[in-house]
């Protein structure tokens, strides 16, 4: 055994578009300890609730993260609606789920691309991102934005999608499905991908549970937990929702779980479009949260469970808003998965937890 050396990783590193710094303590090629350091993107936006009222803050909430931006505006709105006891019409709930599932597809495709780039398969990266642009086209057609959608308000949604347009979206998704199978084929059946990922960064189910992991990272270690099965909002009307699991627990399993979730999302959208009711899209609530009222809520983001907490103080501003994002919950799991791996596998393992640093630090 050689003597231990510390290799700094990041904050500017080609594998991640975001700044994350790790001190990797290595002995020869093996990583024996990992010390993460974050805080490069900390803005302090939770403090902004004091300056922006509940309706303005929705625009701040969706800028917590540009990848799961819709999810954050949805989670924030649901929590504040809980706080004030606002009823949201069914159609608005369905539309929210449709947009949320579309953002899951875009986020997973984005992640699959970055993952492919991390193991050096650049053509696959380009194909994933090419397909992702088709989802962004749907966003642009229905909300006007590519990344930041601003479609949710407290009490409903800002824009309706016409029924004919909804059917067109389903048709488009069916078209994407065929191309998606071709891309998936490369991920799931290509032996070079498998040889890079199988057995790398293994975490058992017991470890995953002890580390309180969430999202696809946990589901790849056979933890059967997906907030969508709690049946909140439009998810309550799904015929049958089962989380996608794998018991292999390695990087390859994480790829497979996410790959299957894209198709699951397409099926969810298809089902909801087929039974969407026509009871209006709701309107902006005029209530203010009561003094001392508290609400907490969980929502399945593309990266896993996100926890929201809100407390009112009797004014149009919230007293406290808190988002606990999936990445901060998964940091402990990431540190654990990295211990004992080879140096060359570090980028792959970091990417398979799908870290979203700007969510994590807010």
């Amino acid at each position: 055994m050689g003597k231990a050396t510390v290799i700094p990783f990041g904050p500017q590193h080609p594998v991640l578009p975001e700044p994350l710094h790790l001190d990797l303590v290595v002995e020869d090629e093996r990583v024996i300890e990992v010390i993460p350091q974050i805080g490069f993107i900390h803005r302090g936006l939770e403090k902004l609730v004091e300056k922006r009222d509940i309706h303005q803050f929705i625009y701040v909430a969706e800028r917590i993260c540009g990848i799961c931006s819709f999810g954050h505006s949805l989670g924030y709105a649901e929590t504040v609606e809980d706080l004030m006891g606002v009823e949201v019409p069914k159609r608005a709930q369905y539309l929210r789920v449709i947009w949320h599932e579309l953002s899951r597809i875009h986020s997973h495709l984005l992640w699959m691309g970055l993952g492919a780039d991390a193991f050096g398969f650049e053509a696959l990266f380009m194909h994933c991102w090419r397909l992702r642009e088709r989802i962004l086209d749907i966003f642009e057609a229905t909300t006007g934005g590519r990344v930041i959608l601003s479609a949710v308000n407290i009490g409903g949604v800002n824009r309706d999608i016409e029924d004919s347009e909804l059917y067109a979206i389903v048709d488009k998704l069916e078209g994407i499905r065929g191309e998606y199978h071709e891309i998936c084929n490369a991920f799931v059946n290509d032996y070079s991908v498998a040889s890079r990922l199988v057995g790398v960064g293994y975490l058992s189910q017991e470890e995953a549970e002890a580390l309180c992991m969430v999202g696809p990272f946990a589901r790849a270690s056979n933890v059967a937990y997906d907030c969508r099965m709690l049946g909140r909002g439009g998810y309550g009307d799904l015929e049958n929702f089962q989380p996608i699991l794998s018991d292999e627990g390695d990087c390859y399993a994480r790829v497979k779980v996410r790959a299957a979730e894209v198709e699951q999302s397409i099926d969810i959208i298809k089902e909801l479009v087929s039974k969407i009711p026509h009871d209006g899209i709701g309107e902006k609530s005029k209530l203010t949260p009561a003094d001392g009222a508290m609400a907490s809520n969980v929502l399945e983001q593309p990266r896993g469970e996100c926890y929201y907490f809100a407390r009112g103080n009797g004014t149009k501003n919230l007293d406290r808003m808190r988002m606990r994002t999936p990445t901060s919950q998964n940091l402990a799991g990431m540190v654990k998965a990295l211990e004992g791996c080879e140096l060359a596998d570090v980028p792959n393992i970091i990417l398979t937890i799908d870290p979203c640093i700007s969510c994590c630090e807010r």
Partner: protein
Amino acid sequence: MSSVSKSPWVIHYDGSSCNGCDIEVLAALTPLYDVERFGIINTGNPKHADIFLVTGSVNEQNISVIKEIYDQMVEPKVVVACGVCACSGGIFHDCYNVIGGVDKAIPVDVYAPGCAVRPEAIIDAVVQGIGILEEKSAALAAAKKKGA
């Protein structure tokens, strides 16, 4: 120095952005917008890069990182601030941990506003950056000639 302006390499650093602009910077490199057809390549090495794309605002912790990357880049170099946070701090301008736009840390040549900045705007900003790069390299060559 036409080789620089015909095939400028870019480096990207995420200040404290929400990711929205970062993925748009990457989207500009991928097939739909495909700036690679102009010879623009995304590199991870500051010493290989001619154009520095910064997204997000500057804070206490990343200001030294941004300065360090800028210092490592060789002359001539151009800085493009991508997105409104990089231009002025944007929606987060009055957060306690945001100092302001990228120009608080390093000199910025081109500002590309937008929240999130659209890939078309990034391409336009990079094209403008190439013009500035040409001017800078001409000035550099002239100074060298004068000195010699």
